[in-house]
């Protein structure tokens, strides 16, 4: 039996007339890596701010390590929140940040932080405001990893990090998580890159949860079927359709649910092309339909 480290019921957050988080229920289990996915403005950052006690809910309940997180030092001590645009005091250098970290994180591993500094080639004596965007993100990633907090939040942690640095982050995260299991909630736009790291996926859109499932159940849970429109339509007739594209007499339809071996053979016999739908494509289908092309501003970023 795994224990629940955080749980929400009917959690709601409003900004004036705008409901950022609209009565959501979810649980985070101990020792798992979660992906908090969704479009800009979906409410990802707001969820993290609520869970870390930085803002107060307007409705519902919220427990982290068994208590509401806000103003409970014993809870907050076990959390680490790496925000998308983390602010540091004027004149601070990365060296100052890492020196101060053990005051906030009792499991801080200075030797591990040093190794990460070398990995990311971070100039620790340079003032933070002189760092590049990627170097600033590296500071956050290092704090997030070396703090080894029992519940760690990474909110879009890698703005400006290049592909090499991002893969370094994934590798170090996996290695360290294997040795020091903890609960990690990672929000990101780069879904395909992190899909395999995640054990569980929570997808939010317009303040509501659209999907809360194990990543392995989501993988291959949708298939796109392409071919002559009439044949495709007949093949997918009984299935829930989550996406559709037409070109002339051809159609490509994305259906929810796995196809079994007989269905795959039948599709091949009908001359239909089957293609797997990646997590990222599935999320585009699930969240893109009504509001495509109108990205909103991130709420309370």
């Amino acid at each position, binding site marked *: 039996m795994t224990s629940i480290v955080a749980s929400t019921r009917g959690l709601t957050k409003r900004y004036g007339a705008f409901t950022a988080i609209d009565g959501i229920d979810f649980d985070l289990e101990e020792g798992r890596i979660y992906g908090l996915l969704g479009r800009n403005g979906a409410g990802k950052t707001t969820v993290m701010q609520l869970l870390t006690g930085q803002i107060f809910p307007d409705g519902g309940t919220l427990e982290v390590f068994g208590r509401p997180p806000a103003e409970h030092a014993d809870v907050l001590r076990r959390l680490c929140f790496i925000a998308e645009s983390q602010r540091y005091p004027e004149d601070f250098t990365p060296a100052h940040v890492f020196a101060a970290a053990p005051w906030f994180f009792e499991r801080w591993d200075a030797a591990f932080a040093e190794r990460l500094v070398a990995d990311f080639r971070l100039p620790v004596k340079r003032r933070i405001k002189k760092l590049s965007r990627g170097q600033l993100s590296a500071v956050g990633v290092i704090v997030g990893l070396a703090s080894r907090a029992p519940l760690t939040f990474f909110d879009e942690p890698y703005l400006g990090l290049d592909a090499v640095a991002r893969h370094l982050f994934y590798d170090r995260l*996996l290695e360290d998580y294997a040795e020091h299991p903890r609960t990690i909630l990672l929000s990101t736009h780069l879904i395909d890159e992190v*899909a*395999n790291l995640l*054990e569980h996926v929570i997808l939010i859109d317009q303040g509501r949860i659209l999907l809360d499932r194990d990543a*392995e159940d989501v993988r291959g849970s949708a298939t796109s079927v392409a071919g002559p429109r009439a044949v495709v339509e007949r093949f997918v007739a009984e299935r829930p359709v989550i996406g559709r594209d037409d070109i002339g007499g051809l159609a490509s339809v994305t259906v929810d649910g796995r196809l079994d071996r007989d269905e795959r*053979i039948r599709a091949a016999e009908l001359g239909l092309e089957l293609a797997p739908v990646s*997590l990222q494509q599935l999320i585009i289908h699930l969240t893109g339909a009504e509001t495509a092309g109108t990205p909103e501003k991130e709420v309370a970023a």
Partner: protein
Amino acid sequence: MDESRPIFLQIAEQIENDIIDGTVAEDAAIPSTNELAAFHRINPATALKGVNRLVEQGVVAKRRGVGMFVVPGARERLVARRRAEFAADYLRPLIVEAAKLGIGVDELAGMLREERILS
């Protein structure tokens, strides 16, 4: 990793393949869950699920404190199972594609013989 199928199944299949082709001998250790996770850049829980599938099927077994080892006789059983699945997994798609191209059974058989001689 193939995006269309659960990764744990692919992990299990890869280890099976290594056992079938002799890369991992019977009685030898398979990689640890963390090694598999790091190598494939996947969640360790997913790697564990793949290994556990092989444990349930009696392909590998745990030796306390040492790791997972291939059970003697596992290779033979894996080969028998793969043979049983061969027709559905490989022959059927081949025949469907051949029929689409107007290649009859005799011509197909001829092509298979050619191919074998060539390779």
